[in-house]
């Protein structure tokens, strides 16, 4: 069950979207998220949906992968929707005791819902179509201007690479520890919240110890492979800003322009 988590998963492929320069994709994703908060009417959201839909079609990522990324956050979305529907004041459509639904409430809830769904799908399109190394290289490149003020861009990127690599390993380890503790009679399923939180201690302690052991092994292995920080390091897939990146940038800028103009003019 715990292994089903697909955080930051990459879907191997060879599409145009996969081939885009990670720097372009990261910036575009960030700006897309900002744009989602600029939009505040339905036509604007239609533009945002159309763009995202085009990216999904071009990327050839199966929809069930996208759906899988969305599933774990559905509860959060449902919760936000409920809160918004009942909490926003305005013209009352329906009332029952202290509960009431207003037209404004429905509108805000719909917008928040669409925003969240687009936000999650948008950012998971970034991780689904960019290999982890590309992602971290991109972040490193985008952060490198800040090296002058002492930001360890390379080290941060390397930490991210390793963190992404070891998510499944640590999940497997957690699974193993849970089973081992259950075999010894540990009970994780009953009792109140406090009791259940306490029951996590026998999982977390061995997990931490094993994380440290893995870290030590990995450090040895990296040293044995001549890792010495950023000095003289080259990359197998150096990032190149190609023609398709220019085209993508132009299309994306057009999208931003439409969103902003639409907000300002209408």
């Amino acid at each position, binding site marked *: 069950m715990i292994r089903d988590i697909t955080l930051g998963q*990459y879907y*191997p492929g060879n599409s145009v979207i996969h081939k885009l320069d990670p720097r372009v994709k990261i910036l575009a994703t960030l700006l897309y998220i900002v744009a989602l908060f600029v939009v505040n009417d339905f036509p604007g959201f239609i533009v945002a949906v159309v763009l995202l839909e085009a990216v999904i079609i071009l990327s050839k990522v199966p929809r069930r992968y996208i759906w899988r990324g969305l599933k774990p956050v559905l509860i959060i979305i449902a919760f936000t929707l409920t809160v918004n529907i009942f909490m926003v004041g305005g013209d009352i459509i329906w009332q029952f005791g202290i509960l009431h639904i207003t037209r404004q409430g429905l509108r805000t809830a719909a917008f928040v819902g669409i925003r969240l769904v687009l936000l999650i799908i948008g950012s998971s399109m970034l991780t689904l179509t960019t*290999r*982890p*190394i590309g992602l971290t290289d991109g972040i490193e490149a985008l952060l490198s201007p800040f090296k002058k003020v002492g930001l360890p861009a390379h080290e941060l990127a390397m930490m991210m*690479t*390793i963190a*992404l*690599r070891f998510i*499944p*390993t640590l999940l*497997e380890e957690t699974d193993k520890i849970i089973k081992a503790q259950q075999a010894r009679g540990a009970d994780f399923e009953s009792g109140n919240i406090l009791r259940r939180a306490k029951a996590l201690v026998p999982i977390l302690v061995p997990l931490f110890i094993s994380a440290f*052991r*893995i870290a030590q*092994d*990995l450090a*040895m*292995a*990296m*040293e*044995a*492979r*001549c*890792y*010495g920080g950023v000095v*003289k*390091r*080259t*990359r*197998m*897939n*150096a990032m190149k800003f190609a023609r398709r990146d220019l085209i993508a940038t132009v299309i994306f800028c057009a999208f931003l322009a439409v969103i902003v103009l639409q907000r300002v003019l209408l």
Partner: protein
Amino acid sequence: MEFIRVEDLIFEYVKTDEGGAPVATRAIDGVSFNVERGSFTAIIGQNGSGKSTLAKNLNGLLLPTEGKVLIDGLDTSVPENTWKVRQKVAMVFQNPDNQIVSAIVEDDVAFGPENLGIDPAEIRQRVDRALEGVEMGDYKDKAPHLLSGGQKQRIAIAGAVAMEPECIVFDEPTAMLDPKGRREVLAIARDLNAKGMTVVFITHFMEEAACADHVLVMDGGQIRMEGTPREIFAREEELEALCLGVPAVVQLASKLKQRGVDLPDGILTDDELVRALTEAKAE
């Protein structure tokens, strides 16, 4: 010609006790040996005999407390030599999970060459060649955590090969694998050796040591026996005194001889035993 020369090596792990005073545990206690260029050397010994510590001394991951380790004439304890030594002697570790750095197979194989500052086009070629060499070319876009233990260990070997070292030290690479994975890893090590790579293979499986040109037996941080597998496995009682056995075939052959079957000395592999038995039957 010798490639690795170990002279009177002593290694101590230093820990601080509760009072803060340093406590030294001697893991290697006066070891000297040579590894010939292009040879296949196996180091066997039970847990805690110092074999892994010895392996980490062979490429400067650990530095001698006393004595010397020379790799192709380079002293590992000289700081300027560290990178050269690690490029000459690559290493494959025991746990396949904890030595893979990247979340995509081919990116992991590229990690070593990238650290060496090699040209991107050249890295690409090396990665492809190394992956083909371990028959993992089809998996180059896969995530390592979805592979079997044996496959992960093959990726780790490809990562070592891509650095184009002159020697690979295998530190119990088969200890965590199933029999199939074990066979694959050993076959790759032998294949690399056949192509000229110097191999140091640390193991506690006697069958694997039987493939070597040269065997070192360690116990209590010292080398207790040294010789060809034939010489070593002929000394069954001494090995048993060190809590080590001999390969099952060797055992079988010696039991058969005790029962009066006419067999030659020094049988090491299944094939040799089969041949000897068919000959014995023919007579």
